């Protein structure tokens, strides 16, 4: 359950930002994660709610976690096409060439927060 640690890390960043910006209510936090980030989306939601419960003196309690799931990006050295895939693939969707080059997949980023 390293999701809890990830949630706490996220909360720390947001809490620091609040402290420096007049402590507004934070309605939601938007993150993006790649398919290979090793984060379980359900566990992450659960961990987020648990972490928010008592954070910032209860001020974060109903803050929503919005997750953008990033697809994998591939570039095929055979046909030169760039394309996206929801799963790992071992051959190019277009020309069938084995092992197109994968780019990224491990993203785990905070994008933005929505505040009152």
């Amino acid at each position: 359950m390293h999701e809890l640690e990830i949630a706490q890390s996220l909360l720390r960043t947001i809490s620091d930002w609040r402290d420096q910006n007049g402590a507004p209510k934070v309605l939601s936090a938007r993150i993006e994660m790649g398919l290979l980030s090793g984060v379980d989306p359900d566990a992450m939601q659960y961990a987020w709610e648990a972490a928010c419960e008592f954070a910032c003196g209860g001020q974060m309690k109903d803050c929503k976690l919005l997750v953008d799931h990033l697809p994998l990006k591939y570039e095929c050295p055979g046909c030169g096409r760039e394309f996206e895939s929801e799963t790992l693939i071992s051959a190019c969707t277009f020309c069938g060439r084995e092992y197109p080059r994968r780019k990224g997949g491990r993203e785990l980023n905070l994008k933005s927060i929505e505040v009152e």
Partner: protein
Amino acid sequence: MCKDCGCGEHHHHGHGEGVHAHTGADGKVYYHSHEPAAREVPLEQAILAKNDNTAELNRAFLRGRGTRTFNLISSPGSGKTTLLTKTLEHLKAAGIPTAVIVGDQYGEIDADRMRSTGVPVTQVQVHDSCHLTAQQISAVLETAVPAGTKILFIENVGNLVCPVAFDLGEDEKIALLSTPEGEEKPLKYPGLFTAAKLVLLTKMDIADALGWNKALCIRNIRTTNPEAEILEVSSKTETGFEAWMEYLKHSVKQ
């Protein structure tokens, strides 16, 4: 006029009235709410930025010392400690100064096994956590890695998922996959196998008895990571140790 429902009323937006009802011109009752005006604040950054920054400092320290660092990750019981204990003996015989940091939830069992080789082994207690962090490595780095150390092995907590997200400052991750775990793990847990530079297939001595399908296992590794090096070893019989030692010696020269 309220532009959402066209009800002709004047609302004060921005103080969170919550849901309220209107009767529209068509006679129907509409419910809607006027949420307070929200604004979006971009905060682009890696969620684990703090860990990543510490990992970079660890990496700089280790490279400054001329130490090559391997982060060993696998399921519990895949053979990390057994492999390392044997490997340390070989490296000692070859005159290559080596050090080990081992993360375990409780006790010093693994550390003591490896200390029998005379190599400096530092134990990090992670308690209930399922992985090491860059901060935990940073805290012991200076004493754990004596000057002149050529290779540092970090034995991560036995876990196939969580350690992958936490950069420790290593030069490369090594994934261990033991034959009793079957052939499908690379597809089920692609996070580790895509991140590893080397995949060590361990417990090769019992592969035949298990009916383990080597071609299928290698194909599954290739699907997740076409570029990974794959070596087959047994820590019982030391099959494959020559190639494994070559790999280590070569990476030290780089």
